[in-house]
């Protein structure tokens, strides 16, 4: 089958080309860069909302992009079960557009932080983690100033198994030292009830080629591979 993924370019998205590169050249899947006003869901099997500073992150990260017509299209995909992935700014857009619960607040340190962290897989049943094992620890970088996850419905999230990733130390322990931004319960990524929509602050597209990783790992690629696998199984 001919799988085709859309990577949406909002004004001042800036990890759009990075995601596109990984899909086209590393995962070897056809992907298009689509200007947010031009996006039509019917042409695509999945959509990625990339990292960046859509509309400068003015007012609040992700809020203005959440009102883009691209999100109406994405909602159709969400509802019919196609995969919707939000990375960093994409995650912020997904919470502001209420595809996902919670909100992303300014880092506790008040500083932007760019570094490699460890994530623990809390839920491997989503469209984006099905090739990972529960409790796996992966290497991946973060780069954000507003990544502090907050929700007033933590219990619900836990009960519904919507927490997908948590920040941990190298050994997999959830500690406050390994929490880079003050996120509630070290949460780094959450999904919707159906598991076809994921938002995460870390950047899998920066962790998909060994040359870019301090430890030579390619853990980020597994997230894209899982997404492709999910699409294949869905249409089978």
């Amino acid at each position, binding site marked *: 089958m001919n799988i085709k993924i859309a990577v949406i370019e909002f004004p001042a998205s800036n990890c759009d080309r990075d995601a596109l590169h990984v899909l086209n050249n590393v995962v070897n899947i056809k992907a298009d860069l689509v200007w947010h006003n031009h996006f039509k869901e019917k042409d695509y099997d999945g959509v990625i909302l990339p990292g960046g500073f859509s509309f400068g992150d003015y*007012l*609040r990260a992700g*809020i203005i992009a*959440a*009102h883009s017509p691209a999100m109406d299209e994405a909602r159709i995909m969400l509802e019919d079960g196609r995969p919707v992935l939000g990375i960093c700014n994409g995650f912020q857009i997904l*919470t*502001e557009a209420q595809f996902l619960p*919670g*909100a992303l*607040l*300014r*880092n*506790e*340190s*008040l500083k932007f932080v760019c570094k490699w962290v460890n994530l623990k897989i809390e839920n491997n049943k989503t469209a984006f983690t099905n090739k990972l094992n529960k409790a796996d620890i992966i290497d991946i970088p973060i780069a954000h100033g507003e990544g502090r996850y*907050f*929700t*007033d419905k933590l219990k619900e999230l836990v009960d519904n198994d919507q927490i997908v990733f948590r920040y941990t130390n190298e050994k997999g322990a959830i500690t406050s030292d390994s929490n880079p931004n*003050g996120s509630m319960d070290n949460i780094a990524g959450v999904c919707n009830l159906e598991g076809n929509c994921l938002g995460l602050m870390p950047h899998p597209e920066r962790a998909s080629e060994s040359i870019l990783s301090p430890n030579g790992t390619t853990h980020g690629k597994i997230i894209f591979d899982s997404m492709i696998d999910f699409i294949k199984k869905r249409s089978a």
Partner: protein
Amino acid sequence: MLWEVEVVLENKKAARDPVGETIKRDLLAKKGYDMVTNVRSGQYLRINIESNDEQQAKQVVEKMCNELRIFNPVTQILTILNVKKS
């Protein structure tokens, strides 16, 4: 008629306020500002709006803030501080 509506968005208590906390901590670190007992921060917007009367100006701003999620109800509260002729 042109009206000026002043709006403040601030974090709910549970979402914390690192900006206010940091200013307060920096203050305490310096001598002489221990009379400050609390600092809260927020985002301020001054909106100029064409409207027939004050009441309507306020209502439109309120509606707009709700509808467009100018404030995020999960984490923030919105206060209209002032409405005056512009």
